[in-house]
């Protein structure tokens, strides 16, 4: 029996949690740019969509007294990409956010939604992994904080419990500064999912200073820690060794966008280029 989709707009976090629990197969929705096409295609449409875009406290980007940056779950990717603090202090995120989809899509999609969708190609996940972000969430069992490194579980799967709502993502002040280089290959110049992408971020206040994140080459977005260590130890001269290490860290598959072999090879090419670009800067 096909039911009509029940769409509800929540005005507070409490209301969102209640609306979610009222019906089985509910889903939280922010931009809906991944959720809606997938619901249409899969035949496993949610019974209810709980829209969180109207919750005021989730619609803000805040610099906390600690210097940490908090991005609410309803903040669009475009707003994050253009935000002066993001651009100045967390350029890796601005870079990745700008690469996602198209202008109209970025105006609709949210950064938190992008990571909750947990696609292996989630552009902003690369930056959040490098910046050691934390996901703030709340559920029937109360609030909790999930380190981004524990957030992605598999394709489309996160460590959020059923009914748990991601409220925001926080980036620590210690990840500020530094530089980043994104290498991203796609089938056309824009408005396309990354066939493979490598983000290299150099964070002066962190250890390791070099951060390497890989997209579309594993079940989840992931870091290549061996490559990071090599770059920390030997700098740009370790480019080739780091590339080898990153290629070894990749677990790509063949799909309609590209073969595993090409993706693995490109991880090496993109990281080598990123090292060269940052080294020369």
């Amino acid at each position, binding site marked *: 029996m*096909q039911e*009509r989709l029940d769409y509800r707009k929540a005005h507070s976090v409490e209301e969102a949690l209640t609306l979610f629990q009222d019906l089985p197969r509910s889903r939280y929705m922010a931009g809906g740019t991944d959720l809606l096409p997938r619901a*249409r295609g899969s035949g496993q449409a949610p019974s209810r969509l709980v829209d969180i875009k109207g919750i005021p406290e989730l619609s803000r980007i805040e610099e906390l007294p600690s210097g940490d940056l908090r991005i609410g779950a309803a903040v669009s990717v475009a707003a994050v990409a253009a935000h002066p603090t993001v651009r100045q202090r967390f350029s890796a995120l601005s870079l990745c956010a700008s690469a996602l989809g*198209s202008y109209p899509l970025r105006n609709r999609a949210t950064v938190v939604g992008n990571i909750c969708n947990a696609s292996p190609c989630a552009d902003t996940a690369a930056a959040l992994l490098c910046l050691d972000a934390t996901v703030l969430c709340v559920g029937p069992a109360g609030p909790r904080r999930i380190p981004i490194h524990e957030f992605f579980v598999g394709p489309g799967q996160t460590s959020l419990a059923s009914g748990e709502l991601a409220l925001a993502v926080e980036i620590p002040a210690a990840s500020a500064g530094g530089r980043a280089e994104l290498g991203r*290959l796609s089938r*056309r*110049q824009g*408005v396309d999912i990354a066939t493979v992408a490598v983000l290299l971020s150099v964070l002066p206040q962190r250890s390791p200073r070099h951060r390497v994140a890989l997209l579309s080459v594993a079940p989840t977005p992931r870091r290549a820690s061996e490559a990071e260590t090599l770059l920390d130890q030997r700098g740009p001269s370790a480019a080739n060794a780091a590339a080898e290490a990153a290629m070894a860290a990749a677990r790509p598959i063949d799909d309609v*966008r*590209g073969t595993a072999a090409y993706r693995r090879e490109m991880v090496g090419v993109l990281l080598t280029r990123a090292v060269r670009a940052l080294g020369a800067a």
Partner: protein
Amino acid sequence: MSQGRWVGRDVLRVDGLEKVTGAARYLADVKLPRMLYAQVVRSPHPHARVREVDVSRALSVAGVRAVATGRDFPFHVGIYLKDQTVFATDRVRFVGDPVAAVAAESPEAAREAAALVRVEYEPLPALFDVRQGILPDAPLVHPDLGKYQVVPWITPQAGTNICNHLKVRKGDYHAALKTAAHVVENTFVVPQVQHVPMEVHGSAARMDLSGKLEVLTSAQSPFTVRHLLCACFGLSHGDVRVMVPQVGGGFGGKAGINLEPIVTALAMRVPGRWVRLVLTRAEEFYAAVVRQGLVATLTTGVDRSGKVVAQRMHYLWDCGAYGGYGVNVVRAAGYTCGGAYEFPNVWGDSIGVYTNRPVGSAYRGFGMQEIHWALEQQMDMVAHEIGEDPIAFRLKNCLGPGKRTVTGQLLDEHSGRVDQCIQRVAQAFSEPLATRPGRLRGRGLACAVKAPAMPNDAASSVLLKFCEDGVLEVLVSGIDYGQGLRTVAAQFAAEALNLPIEQVRVRNLPDTDLSPYDWQTVASRQTWATGNAILRAAEKCKAQLFETASQVLGAPVERLALRDGQVVDTGGAGRVPITRLVMGYQFPDGHVIGGPVAAAAHHVPEGLLFLDPQTSQSAKPVAKWTFGAQGVEISVDPDTGHIQVDRVVACYDVGQVVNQGLILGQTYGGVVQGLGTGLMEELKLDLLTGKAQNANLVDYKIPTALDVPAALEASFVETPQKDGPMGARGIGEHTMIPTPAALANALYAACGIRIQEMPLTAEKVRAALREKRAKG
């Protein structure tokens, strides 16, 4: 460039305001009174016998008003070859083949009921490759091929998978090949691609209680739809009315007949109710029509002077599950098999093969981009083999006045000049290509030729009539789905009657009850055919105006002229505004002469002759040829294989530029569509299940504005077409024909690799570069 007052100028689109304000209404915008929503039940199997279709559970869903199946409507349909039924009867032939359809009060009820139609299938071995399809033991996609109705010039081979085979035999190929100093043979492959119009297919139908059928449809061919619906359902043309609202792109995919029989069948089940079907984007990819795939093998023999002496062309077309329209692509590719070149000795075979893939049909270029992918790479490869410059080699062998095509047609000084197009592009490339660090750069060139592919009696007719205030209404039944027909029609009418363009209104939402006949909007034929008809009708209107004015002014007709809405006696006896003439002239004493000024006229191609059935030789098999050439400059990233297109230069001999802005739009649009098929497009099937793997815009990519090259240049040669309106010939399709081959040639120039299977993806380039390096 010759210019009239309106023709040859940069006249703005007459329907621009409607389009940009959203006033233009498309099928999905139209809410019809008491409309039912249709949903198609489609085959999940690429090839299967249909054992049973049980609709009982579907009928019990609340809101369902009708379910139609192949048992109720076992009628055949098809424009040239009637090889398809409205719904599958005994077997399904591709994933997406319609088995039944539901009409219900809501889309949700229709979907629910469609899911409850229980179909019992017995899967059969599926065929996905034309090379296997022609083998004697291949599974037969159409065991009843010998029983289908077909037009006389299409030749399906009963007992095989071959739905059409055109043979071209000119001179003595085998003898000539023996004399050749060099022989080069290569095979090239083109995958199925989809049109991806902005507006998906949609149709609606209503049969009233007296049995009269109305159809509203997003289509390129309202009259052909009417004709084929009548043939399919046994209706009289007088009882079927087909109307076309605004159409948001078609590119050939909406030519012929498509969803109309499905909504008609449902409408017949629920008299008095409108039934509307709009495809989803996913259905558009796999269940609407696609461009046919091609496997082309070319053999070229050249003599010591660099002249081609023998040319063999073997084209195997992947027509998919049905060849109703696609059989004519096979035919067109056959009689154009040599492209823009004069080959004295030719052995050509163009063979359409059924497979269990999506249905092949018309697509901008009608087979020409596919064969040029092969022909134009082959020309470069032969030139390299004999150590000649590819441009010089082309100029030595290309068609032109005094040369004969593969079918023996003699070209004359009105036929267009591909040599001049080649030289223009070569001139644009005379400066050496600047190097770029880390990139391999190269230039490539390819030619293009295409003739309209249409029956010899393909006609366009128009009606011109004046309003009381002197505004001229021009009724044309071609479809303006973006190419600018309405604007061009206004230009020709304003030119012929010397009217301000604001005083012309093109009435063009065709309605077969009210509009003049037009065969189809295909084959780049509208500017040419409708343009000619308008000029003729305008002459008739002028004669009516002059006849009345002559009596009013007391001046002979020969002395009269039209100037800015007035009939003027050039001999000085005075003038009379046409507003006083268009409804008849009333003299001071009250008596009236003349009457409402109106005229109809038509255009039918002149003197076309059938091809010889054994050799395809014919003195005039087609109405006209449009030639052109494109050059591209690319930068290749050798590490990733990515191709960046830096510059495209296009030149076509269009006879006469009619509208400067629109022809640039056609050229740029065609080039970008050509870059899409050349670089990224391919409908990929899972060969285990027959399902499309990328039936969505996430994984089927077409170019966006970001993929448009930094430099796009277009220029035009104007060798007037003898039977063209003011010398014009067609250009709409030609602009996307040579682009992929030019890219492939540029890729070879840039890095010495040759990719013969479209598209040129980064991954293929990278693999070819690695292979080349490994060979040293």
